[in-house]
């Protein structure tokens, strides 16, 4: 029962920047515990789709549903967002990991983790510290809590960023090309952390160029191009027998 709960549902999402249509009628849903991988060439709209999900970008029309509540609906052709308190609550269900890490450079690793729980959730420092340390342990950086981000490698920074997002106890984790800014030898440690998270049945939406990760860790794969979903399916099927010519061409290029 719990496994069929719809965590995210996006319906008929349209978004354009100026005259350029970036998302042209996207439908997708993610159930609890699922890992959705979104792949596609750059400029296909996959990052924009992810950013629309947590309102880093606003949609022009369509609807976004988070855990059964509407973040945005469309009335008379225009998207309307939920009132501030509800919006804050729904957006709070999601944690985000960025391509560029975006850690706070003036804070230590530990401060990066506990800042938002203290400010946003009003938790006491002592109350959140054990969980923050547990998360650092989990991402393999227990001995780095007093370091500043600039003293860490890219892979370590990204693992801190994952721990920072987790520290808010989100129900859904969003990843926007989390390994694209990393040296090849550092992507492995970040992907390992993400695999562990997936194994714990965290609901995840991952925009990625890592085909191996999509194949092994994802429960569902979406291939986007030109603001459309070209093809989707379970990874075994999707990677072994892509139906669309464009999917085949893209996968051939990636391998």
């Amino acid at each position, binding site marked *: 029962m719990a496994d069929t709960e719809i965590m995210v549902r996006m319906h008929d999402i349209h978004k354009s920047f100026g005259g350029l249509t970036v998302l042209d009628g996207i439908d997708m849903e993610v159930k609890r515990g699922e890992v959705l991988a979104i792949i596609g060439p750059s400029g296909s709209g996959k990052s924009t789709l992810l950013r629309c999900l947590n309102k*880093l970008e606003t949609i022009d029309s369509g609807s976004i549903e988070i855990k059964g509540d509407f973040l945005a609906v469309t009335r008379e052709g225009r998207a309307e967002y939920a009132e501030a308190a509800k919006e804050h609550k729904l*957006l709070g269900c999601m944690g985000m990991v960025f391509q560029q890490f*975006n850690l*706070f*450079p*003036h804070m230590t690793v530990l401060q990066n983790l506990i*800042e938002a729980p203290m400010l*946003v959730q009003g938790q006491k420092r002592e109350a959140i510290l054990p969980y923050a340390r547990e998360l650092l342990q989990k991402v393999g950086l227990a001995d780095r809590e007093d370091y500043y*981000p600039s003293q860490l490698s890219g892979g370590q920074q990204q693992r801190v960023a994952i721990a920072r997002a987790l520290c*808010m106890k989100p129900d859904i984790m969003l990843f926007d090309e989390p390994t694209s800014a990393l040296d090849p030898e550092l992507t492995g440690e970040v992907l390992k952390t993400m695999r562990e998270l997936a194994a714990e049945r965290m609901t995840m939406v991952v925009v990625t160029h890592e085909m191996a990760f999509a194949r092994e860790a994802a429960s569902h794969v979406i291939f986007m191009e030109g603001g459309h979903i070209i093809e989707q399916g379970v990874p075994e099927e999707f990677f072994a027998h892509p139906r669309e010519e464009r999917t085949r061409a893209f996968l051939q290029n990636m391998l």
Partner: protein
Amino acid sequence: MDNLLSMVLQMAEGCEITLQIFFITLVLALPLGLLASLARLSEWRPLSALMEFYIWLMRGTPLMLQLLFVYFALPMVGILLPDLAAALLAFTLNYAAYFAEIFRSGIQAIPKGQYEAAQTLGLSYPQTMRRIILPQVIRIVLPPVSNETINLVKDTSLIYILAMNDLLRVARTIVQRDFDMTPFLVAAVFYLAMTFVLTWGFKRLEAHYGRY
């Protein structure tokens, strides 16, 4: 020797008004400049246009002219300020404009990703500014703020035209009375001492904020 001592003491008294103008201007102009920079960056066009005009006006005219305006022109329209208040008004308005531009450049130097990270963690705009953006801005703006602060020490000497007995005016009075140039040298030493303390202080601050 007694002569020199009494000269130095007289000039130390002149330092009092110099330091008064310096500290009060700094204490008022820094927060005002911060507010002005936030207003200048506002998405509400009338507010940012107003700030742009204010900054243009303050940077586009000599501080000396602004002092004369506050001191001589305002009384003509019925606004009569005590000497010190008049000087402080001109200095504060002028320096706030310069600080505003320094803070604006500092705020704009913070990558967009910092705001996005704060937003996705649920921080409000005031929380984001106070905890994430401004602490990073301080580090960026320390060198130009230090520069401007040292300018302020020397700019205080402009109040001699308002007949206030600051360090430089006291020196000049003694020079004219005694036909002795020593007071100018003593004044130079006083100014150098003040800027030395400031330079040292800002160095400490930069080291503190440069730890990451």
